[in-house]
């Protein structure tokens, strides 16, 4: 493991599998009467959110608290940041307070990278979503959810997603979730297909390790997991697609379309869903849909990442359990 988690592309296959395996153990803590581990006692983690995201913040906060870290929530809204204080000043303030890790959500792509590499701060940096760049813990929790459903909780230990076919549908252009998932799923051996109207696929996608299709119906029968991305209604005004109705007709997932998927295939969504746009209520509420599991799995994944980044001082080898020296 490295010192920071900035991009899913930075993870090796073994790193990623270690995180998933660790998360599997973390998930078991949720079944215990006392859902808490003393691991990060005395460590301070700051959730530095320059963008509103209640779900991601709460998920990180739950993970941090389950590991007994001291948690400081710093929301940029109404703070000195909106009064013109720069990211650098904020970082240096946190550094002076002696924080061990910064979980950062920022509207600007690359802000976590800059924070980690600028020398402004010594703490470990965990990217909780930056602009349209990356959201690595989301990709990890998605991969974890897939592995649990498609391979099995126990059977999945040590396994990657080799040969699994994952289809990601929606606003790829503006999606950090799509970017992170393409990187991570490819690393884990899955075959990824992106489906979107051509306006919502970035120029340069040809270099991504995935296929691109404009035809959802042709891809569905060959999918083990279908991930629906949120499509913001505002995109319509920038002429990315003509109307909401046309979008959902061509790229939305309804029960009829879901029936074209193989029996074992799951429907995923990073949330928040726009019901009636990219997904119908019927699909969202079906047992094939993993949305609620994804939320629970998010906590386990974030516990795993926090433990692996903060559990030791030294950069750790992402390898097998060390034999205990007695």
């Amino acid at each position, binding site marked *: 493991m490295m010192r920071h988690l900035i991009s899913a592309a930075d993870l090796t296959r073994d790193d990623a599998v270690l995180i998933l395996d660790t998360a599997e153990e973390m998930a078991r803590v949720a079944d215990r009467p006392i859902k808490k581990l003393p691991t990060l006692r005395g460590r301070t983690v700051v959730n530095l959110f320059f963008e509103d995201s209640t779900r991601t913040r709460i998920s990180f906060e739950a993970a941090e608290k389950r590991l007994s870290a001291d948690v400081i929530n710093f929301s940029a809204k109404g703070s000195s940041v909106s009064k013109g204080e720069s990211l*650098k000043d904020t970082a240096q303030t946190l550094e002076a307070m002696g924080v061990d890790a910064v979980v950062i959500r920022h509207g600007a792509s690359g*802000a976590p990278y800059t924070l980690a590499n600028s020398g402004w701060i010594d703490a470990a940096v965990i990217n909780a979503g930056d602009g349209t*760049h990356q959201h690595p813990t989301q990709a990890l929790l998605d991969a974890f959810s897939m592995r649990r459903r498609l391979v099995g909780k126990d059977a999945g230990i040590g396994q990657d997603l080799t040969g699994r076919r994952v289809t990601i549908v929606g606003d790829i252009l503006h999606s950090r979730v799509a970017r992170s998932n393409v990187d991570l799923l490819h690393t884990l051996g899955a075959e990824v297909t992106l489906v979107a109207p051509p306006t919502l696929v970035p120029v340069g996608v040809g270099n991504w390790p995935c296929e691109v299709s404009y035809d959802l119906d042709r891809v569905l029968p060959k999918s083990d997991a279908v991930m629906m991305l949120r499509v913001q209604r505002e995109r319509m005004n920038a002429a990315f697609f003509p109307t909401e109705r046309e979008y959902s007709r061509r790229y939305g997932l309804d029960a009829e379309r879901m029936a074209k998927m193989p029996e074992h295939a799951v429907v995923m969504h990073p949330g928040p869903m726009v019901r009636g746009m990219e997904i119908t209520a019927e699909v969202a509420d079906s047992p094939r849909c993993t949305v609620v599991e994804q939320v629970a799995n998010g906590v386990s994944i974030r516990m795993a990442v926090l433990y692996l980044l903060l559990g030791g001082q030294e950069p750790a080898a992402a390898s097998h359990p060390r034999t205990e020296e007695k």
Partner: protein
Amino acid sequence: MSKILIRGARVLGGEPQDVLIDGAEIAEVGQDLAADGAEVVEAGGKVLLPGLVDLHTHLREPGREDSETVLTGTRAAASGGYTTVFAMANTFPVADTAGVVEQVWRLGKESGYCDVQPIGAVTVGLEGRKLAELGAMHESAAGVTVFSDDGKCVDDAVIMRRALEYVKAFGGVVAQHAQEPRLTEGAQMNEGVVSAELGLGGWPAVAEESIIARDVLLAEHVGSRVHICHLSTAGSVEIVRWAKSRGIDVTAEVTPHHLLLTDELVRSYNPVYKVNPPLRTEADVMALREALADGTIDIVATDHAPHPHEDKDCEWAAAAMGMVGLETALSVVQHTMVDTGLLTWAGVAERMSVKPAEIGRATGQGRPVAPGEPANLTLVDPAYRGTVDPAGFASRSRNTPYEGRELPGRVTHTWLRGRATLVDGKLQ
């Protein structure tokens, strides 16, 4: 003024010769000239060029004196071998009236380090809606001949047409910053493979190329000359090449950084690489070098764009666009064009002095190294190898993309009308 004998310099990269300066002019060029009381500058192995002329400099004064002033900018220019810079109009207030251009012109005179030719804005406040008083700026003491809204594109086709036509009356030229605004909303870097990966808003090549195509056609239609600022794409080169083949009166410039750097550098999210137009791909860089060599691109212009430290010491999206360039331009051109065999030193003189002076109508600049000509000269040591250290810059700003990079060549002397502004690399 005293006499100076430059001994054994390779004039325009040719055979060693002696050049005698007497007062503000070149008195003699030849072999074994007698010193005869003149101050002698030993120039063995060095290359003597006409003083460089930069058609595209941001001096920031008035308004942003925290990043550069006319004085610090002209000192940087002299350090880089320049004897004339054209100061862009996007100051605060904008240089869109005779008053502002005269102020800049006067500050240039007072600095004494190099000639400052103010560029006037094409439209009032660079807003692209209403023509500025182009004639008044031309008739002012500053004698403006180059007009540009640089930083912003004159995107309205009618305004552009009118500007092209209007300046014909006094031999002016419009220098277009070619950037279709709608195609570049939220743009942060070149649109392509790297932007797709980094999730940064794309600045597509077509946003530059479509404006250039439109403007060369407009220039043809109204019979005007047009100058294209900072070409950055292979497609732009093709359009300019086509326009020249049709006899359209178009000239074009390229910046040193677009001859060397690519968008791969943006992967570091280091805002020092954030510039407009953005760094493009390797294929674009190669096409620009070729075009500069074959004359499709007429000149090298620095687009020297100083910014204070805090505007670059931040996340990418919040950072200002632009790089300083006056003090590294010649080294980058030597590295990319001369050392690669694409251009001779005579070719460098043509593209960094003669042609830019001609486009900007800078009298007394870009002249041959010959008796009777003004002694605007630059002496370069091409054998020098050094690492760029912005701490040594004369510019007030340090936002160079070359920090720590090894670049060849060094300007050792600059003379402005016979007066040394730079001696042995030290400003006078």
